[in-house]
């Protein structure tokens, strides 16, 4: 297999006495979709925040495309090709849907006219074009989650971190978003995705990484991981699915 695009090496993130992420190591290879699962509070979002530069690791390091990126701020990492969505979506509520995506497009297209062109393409792709001039605050949850993906996509990322982009959607919208994610992979984007809905994660992931209480408890193909006694235990024990 090719060189890994992301190497998480013995990563720990402490909040005071709490190890939200504890000595976690795994790799992601180009064009893979890797699912990151685990009960609530397992440390998935924290791991995302460390990889995307919102928190510096307490210990360990992260390599992206072979370079150590630990502690680099998010805006630098966006430039390097890391895009992310937020579990609690972060639209710029007072701005239009188009403006939201244009702002992200400035990263690769510093001229306004080119950025707008690019933003329109992203809006077509994410099927938000008909809502372009609405304020972002007026979108439904499904719309806001799609806008979240659209903004990350407008960065032309090589690597995308998706944090619960399906949660809270109805079944039709879920299928819709799955199609969108698979299309992204076909475009050559590598994806690390956090999702609680097993039907979704089993269907789209090439590989799963399972966290529990901040530690990696399993890793492997979805079918295998689902039968892993430790994983079953963590989910039943935590009362989560």
């Amino acid at each position, binding site marked *: 297999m090719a060189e890994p695009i992301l190497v998480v090496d013995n990563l720990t993130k402490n909040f005071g006495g709490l190890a939200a992420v504890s000595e976690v190591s795994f790799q992601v290879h180009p064009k893979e979709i890797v699912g990151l699962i685990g009960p*609530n*509070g397992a440390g998935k*979002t*924290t791991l995302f*925040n460390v990889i*995307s*530069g*919102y928190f510096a690791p307490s210990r360990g390091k992260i390599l992206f495309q072979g370079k150590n990126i630990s502690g680099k*701020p*998010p*805006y630098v990492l*966006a*430039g390097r090709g890391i*895009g*992310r969505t*937020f*579990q*609690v979506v*972060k*639209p*710029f*509520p*007072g*701005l239009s849907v188009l*403006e939201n995506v*244009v*702002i*992200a497009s*400035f*990263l690769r297209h*510093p*001229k*306004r006219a080119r*950025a707008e062109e690019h933003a329109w393409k992203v809006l077509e792709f994410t099927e938000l074009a008909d809502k372009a001039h609405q*304020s*972002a*605050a007026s979108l439904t949850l499904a719309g806001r989650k799609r806008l979240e993906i659209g*903004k*990350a996509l*407008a*960065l032309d990322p090589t690597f995308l971190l998706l944090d*619960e982009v*399906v*949660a*809270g959607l109805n079944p039709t919208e*879920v299928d819709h978003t799955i199609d969108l994610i698979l299309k992204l992979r076909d475009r050559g984007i590598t994806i690390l995705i956090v999702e*609680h*809905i097993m039907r*979704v994660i089993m269907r789209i992931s090439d590989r799963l990484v399972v966290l529990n209480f901040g530690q990696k408890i399993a890793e492997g193909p979805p079918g295998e991981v689902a039968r892993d006694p430790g994983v079953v235990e963590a989910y039943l024990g935590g009362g*989560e*699915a």
Partner: protein
Amino acid sequence: MKDRRLLGYLFVFAATLLVPAVVHDTFLLRVFTEAVMWIGLAVTFDVLAGYTGYLNFGHSAFFGIGAYTTAILMVRAGWHFAPAAVLGGAAAGIGALIAGFPTLRLRGAYFAIATWALARAIQQLVLIMDVTGGPDGMRLPAFLSPRFFYYVMLGLVGITFFAYWFLLERAPFGLKLKAVREDEQGAKALGLNPTKLKMQAFILSAVPTGIIGGVFAYWVTFIDPASTLGDLVSDQALVMVVFGGMGTLVGPVVGAILIFAFKTAFWAYLSDYEVLYIIILGAVIAGSVVFLPNGVLGVLPQRGRRNGPSPEEKGPGAVLPETEGGNSHG
């Protein structure tokens, strides 16, 4: 659409060029000059307040730094007015760079307090220094041409307005600032460096304010710490911006004109009731915050106005990324 608006601005600007041809009364021309000055102070205040959500209660410091730099260079070093005023602007810009570094990382309310305290510190400093004349202030060489000062002020404020229009409404910069205002953490994920953008806005606000201060000093020929470094500049600019409409370019202009007209009329007819003026001003502000959250301008139906929560409601938050543990299970 935007271009038609620009034509409107240019038309209004051209019309104001004709004011001295019509207004021959010296006192009245002074009033017009001061109105233009307040438009400039309100617009510069709004670059930070409206576009980034940071209320700068030290705006007066930039004005005072510009005024004093100009006065010192002219009086103590024999400089000509124009280069002295330009250096006044540069000094204000450097002041912003130094003050912004620690303060722009703070959340909105702390920023307001910190800038207010810094402005007070500068005022105290000027009071005890020799080169500034301390509490006695400084007298500048008199140049008594009301027309000259009207045109200088108008040219300066006009250039500032059109430069802002280009940067904030046309170039990517304005949208980037709004992104930071709306959600600083979210903006970072899109490749924006919030601290750098806020710093640029701060300097963009400070430099013209400093030059305006320099023009003011030469115009009124006498400055002291109270008149140039007091709270008045910051407070009045804030009032004008809130009343006119924050986060727009035209709002502060409209607010400055209305508030200044009211103030001038009030002083002309009711100058015995200073307290009443303060009370009315306070009531107007309270009223406009409650009833006109987007200012006078917000009452007019317009395309492309923001309709989300205003920055005062939300505050420019430096909230950490979400870390919630208990929601959204499919």
